[in-house]
């Protein structure tokens, strides 16, 4: 461990890799909001549409992200075309798409709950959707590390690339600790932001209800 030498470019690379994690999470959440929103509306509609939406949400909840990622990677042809335009997704996009079942089912569950709250006359309850989505975003950031398995150069891939060159377990553990610190600070900051948002919304709702 005394001889641990971290190359100069490691920290910039790690930060650049973490930007990729955020990028993946943002794409997954955007798709999730669109799809999950539709599913939430569908579920609340009831009847056949509601049953189909509920079944789809259940299936998406059950689909393991890592398997979905390999499924998409192998099922979409490299030369896939749509209206003459190449639509084969990049590895980064495949990771993002693999997270969509999780984000969409999460958005559908929370979205349906928020809509119920709104219909029941509780805007504060409905606004809980925002901190919940923030929580989902940071869970997606952490989950996007699965991209390392298919060659996406995100934060964890940068750490593993350095670790593989270190022969001693102690040195590797120091490097891993740096990774946990970087991701941990990000995650905890995200959760702090979520709590702040919850408090702010609470005060906002209290002020509104107190107003004449």
């Amino acid at each position, binding site marked *: 461990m005394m001889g641990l030498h971290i190359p100069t470019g490691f920290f910039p690379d790690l930060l650049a890799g973490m930007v990729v994690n955020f990028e993946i999470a943002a794409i997954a959440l955007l798709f999730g909001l669109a799809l999950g929103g539709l599913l939430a509306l569908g579920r609340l509609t009831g009847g056949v549409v509601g049953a189909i939406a509920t079944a789809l949400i259940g299936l998406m909840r059950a689909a393991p992200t*890592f398997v979905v990622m390999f499924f998409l990677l192998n099922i979409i042809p490299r030369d896939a075309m749509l209206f003459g335009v190449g639509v084969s997704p990049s590895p980064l996009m495949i990771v993002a798409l693999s997270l969509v079942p999780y984000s969409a089912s999460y958005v559908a569950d929370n979205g349906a709950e928020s809509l119920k709250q709104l219909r029941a006359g509780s805007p504060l309850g409905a606004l809980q959707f925002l901190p919940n989505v923030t929580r989902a975003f940071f869970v997606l950031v*952490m*989950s996007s590390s699965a991209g390392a398995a298919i*060659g996406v*150069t995100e934060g*964890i891939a940068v750490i593993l690339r350095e670790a593989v060159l270190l022969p001693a377990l102690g040195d590797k553990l120091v490097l891993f600790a740096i990774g946990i610190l970087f991701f*941990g600070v990000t995650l905890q900051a995200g959760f702090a932001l979520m709590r702040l948002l919850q408090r702010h919304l609470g005060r906002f709702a209290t002020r509104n209800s107190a107003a004449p």
Partner: protein
Amino acid sequence: MRAWRTLLLALLGILGGAVATFPLAVNAETPDAALAKLLEGARAEAAVPGACTAAHLDRLVQIFCEKRLRAGIREYYPLFGAREGEARSGYDVDVGRAVAKHLGVEPVFTRVNAASRIPLLAEDRIDLAIATMGHNTQRDGQVRFIRPHYYQSETTVVGPRALAVKGWPDVAGRTICVTIGNGSNAQIISHNVRLMLFDEAGVLPDRLKDDTCTLAAQDDSFFAYYFTHPDFAKNYEQKFGFAQVPWGMAVARTGSDQLARALDLTSQIFHRDGVFLGIARGNSVGLGFLERQQAVWKRPECNTDTGSTNPACVLPALDAALQPTPFAGRATAIEDWVEARTGVDFSLPMFKTMPAWSLFKDGIVNSLILVAGALAATLLFALVLGALQSSRRFLLRWPARAGSIVLQSSPVVLTLVIAAAVAQAFFHYSSAVAIGAAIVALGLMNGSNAGQAIAEAMHTLRAERGSAQGTGGIPTTELFGRAVSRSATQIVSFLINAAKGTPIASFIGAPELLSALTDITSFASGRATTYTLLLVFYVAVVVVVVWLCDRFRSWLEHRQAAA
């Protein structure tokens, strides 16, 4: 006089008998003489008026009729077959030129690739393929390979110079980038190596450079070109090689008997006289195999007209055939049935060969072990960490809380890698160790969250009822039981999460179903069907786990209600 004649006849008879008894000693010819005789006969046949228009001519005679040798060569295989404008270069190209010169005809080159080289021979559009073609038993049924082989490649593992890798023990548990369909993938898998699959070999050097791949495996003939680049050679090296495959020139199986024989003899002569070696030097390709072959073909027992059929001199073809399963026929019938009715290219590679079937079965069993283990470990760590975080003792409570925060802050892939690295420090790497490490990692990750939920429930219960035994409250163990019941929803949620997370164990080499199917698709076709089945399997497993967990939650909640 008659007596002398009788004696002379008797002596001739004895001499004749001796010749008949030791035919090799007397009849053995040099390959040069045998070739000269064969070529002379073919030339004479070609020179007969009207002979060249006759049907069923041997291709050797046809070559003399047309005074040209049609050779199929590659155009995008650096060092072996390359083309810039009209200029062709490479080892295969120069071998084609040397063969044509030896026959006294002009070479005419036709571009071939891996898919077209055999059909072009069968369609009589080329006389000879010199196209980096490995000689294996499967191809023996499609073309006639020329022996001795004109080159030999092996699969080489390439990686950064700074990485200490010398052999198989050093790569167990690591990921190696390979191309789909590479014949040596099955051998790589057998050494507990994970594969990252790519469609084209051409991307491997770039993926090494951008650090997507730490190690890559491909033909040494492929990497030879990249090692001529100073930048690449400075940073990367060949770690070790395996799966040697002899390369053969090839002719069509029918109508090429004399041509094949002539080329066998030519190849012998080229090895013995160092012609192949000289061409290889001129093209900067590896010389090891050719140097060894020169020594072989200089040996008296090999340097004969029968040397190319002598097992002591020639190399065997690589046995690439995979043993079929007893139900391979039924699997094919199902594939055909589905394709005929739906038009979907349906493939079941896991049911067709024994190595694939074995990987598939083991993958399912290991996945189920992993799921069961992850559920048990999650529950166990949840109870232990929940109890520690609920403790009134600072020295128990705070380390447990700190540990939970660290576990929650680590991305799942990193936690798995840490678990695998620690396990490898204590145990020799094996599939069981990888599965064990994955179970512990998944259990810790999910158990820490569930444990926190239990501790929070414990805190609320204490606040509601007062706690300590002997102060009028209820016993701590009973209170803890109620806390577990109260946090049932959270525990169940993390149990399901643990089950869903098990496929990621393949990242550290646990041979579960995802890993097994990735291995199968590396040497067999049918990726779409294979990964669809994989998705169905895991969704079904998670659905069952959800159902079981719901029953578990109901039991816990019923218990809480009763309390």
